[in-house]
């Protein structure tokens, strides 16, 4: 077998494997949706996952949001004051966070904090035969384990993005108004006047929901599909973080190009 033939064989095999896995992921997603009823019929299952994915991610989200806001305040002020528009700091901070940084950075943090945790938990449950045991007890793991984690992630994500944005705006206010001395009235009034609820806030919420679906799906799928060994689970966690990050950035571009094409 010559080099070229070997090259095409490897490329072909990898392509087939990836397409096959994508198909499996699509079937998994459909099955997950079909088995989601129990999650909403038994709110305790969902509440537990909202706590695990949402509440336990609060610290990293709020602290990161605050620091991002502080940096935005400094950078924004430095640029705006060159043009004599430092009162517009409120708009710059708010629009940056509501439209982009809130959903995207919160999504990336969510993938590394909650997504990796979900994959590790589900992967280890698979490796220790807990999923099989549940299935053998006539309890569908998709309904009992996977769907609540998926929906917990989907519902947590917009709330975390909103909190990230709020913490960021607070950080921008702290730097701009409290430490630098930008007029407080102008800071809030310009923000209120120029941030549009439908175009900015709603689009930010839509983004965070889409990112929540993407990250949660990747996290549960990678855990469910993990090779049931220590190394397999470790690789699945890595794939969750990497794939989620790429998915968030790619989806952000697609969504942004649809949402702001008229501007």
């Amino acid at each position: 077998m010559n080099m070229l033939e070997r090259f095409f064989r490897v490329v072909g095999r990898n392509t087939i494997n990836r397409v096959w896995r994508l198909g499996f992921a699509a079937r998994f997603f459909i099955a997950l949706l079909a088995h989601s009823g129990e999650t909403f019929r038994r709110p305790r299952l969902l509440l537990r996952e909202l706590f695990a994915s949402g509440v336990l991610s609060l610290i990293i989200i709020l602290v990161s949001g605050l620091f991002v806001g502080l940096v935005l305040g400094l950078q924004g002020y430095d640029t705006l004051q060159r043009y004599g528009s430092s009162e517009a700091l409120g708009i710059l901070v708010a629009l940056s966070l509501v439209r982009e940084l809130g959903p995207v950075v919160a999504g990336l943090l969510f993938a590394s904090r909650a997504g990796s945790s979900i994959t590790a938990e589900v992967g280890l449950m698979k490796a220790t035969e807990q999923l099989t045991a549940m299935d053998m007890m006539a309890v569908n793991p998709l309904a009992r384990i996977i769907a609540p984690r998926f929906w917990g992630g989907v519902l947590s994500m917009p709330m975390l993005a909103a909190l990230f944005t709020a913490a960021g705006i607070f950080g921008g206010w702290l730097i701009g108004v409290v430490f630098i001395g930008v007029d407080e009235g102008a800071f809030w009034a310009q923000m209120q006047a120029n941030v549009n609820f439908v175009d900015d806030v709603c689009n930010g919420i839509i983004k965070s929901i889409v990112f929540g679906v993407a990250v949660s799906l990747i996290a549960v799928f990678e855990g469910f599909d993990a090779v049931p060994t220590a190394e397999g689970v470790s690789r699945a966690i890595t794939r969750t973080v990497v794939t989620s990050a790429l998915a968030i950035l790619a989806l952000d571009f697609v969504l942004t190009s649809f949402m702001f094409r008229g501007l």
Partner: protein
Amino acid sequence: MTFPYVEISGLDFAYGDRQILSGINMQLPKGKLTAIMGGSGCGKTTLLRLIGGQIKACRGSLKVAGQEVGQLRERDLYEMRRRTGMLFQFGALFTDLTVFDNIAFPLREHTKLPESAIRDLVLLKLEAVGLRGAAQLMPAELSGGMARRVALARSVALDPELILFDEPFTGLDPISLSIIATLIRRLTDALGATSVMVTHDVHESLAVVDYVYFMSAGRVVGAGTPEEIKVSTDPYVYQFVHAQPDGPVHFHYQAPTLDEQLLEGVL
């Protein structure tokens, strides 16, 4: 002749091109404890998974309580599994639940019993395996033997008609091993259940089971009562029961002769 609860005939199973089971015929009588023995990789755990409906046979018939397992729809399969208990090799306890909640899990999922009744049932199951005092411990706080006993209690929580034991003695000390063997026998009798135990622990198994099937390379190579097995002259059964290092199962992995390999200097 006792009515067979599990009937297997002409069963073949393969993973892709790799044949795992070939022409398996077995009848597992109702209310009896049957062992399926054989070396590692002979296909016995695969057979257990086929009985539980986790995988489907390529050819042949596998009936549980008269139902063809491979043809059951998901709902019917789950209905069958509600009447089936399974003890996994390492227990497979839910690590985020206490011992009590692990045993209560199938009761809470499949019955509408009030919590007070569930509490009483769980305590009775724990009493049966001698671990009532461990009800509030987490699985991480249990020894291997205790975890296996808790898993045993969980597998019989719904008083199943069929109990599947996958290598129940693996990694246990002699005392725990003896306890698990005794409990398997006692619970099978108490519930009147049909039990299938996959194992390669000869002496503990022969002391408690009613009937034994021996498997090698995906085929049934011997069968009989424990007394028949102990005096069997079948070469494979003899080698396995008496733990002979060489016999039909070779000590040496397939290779060229040593002379050939040394003289030719190839690996």
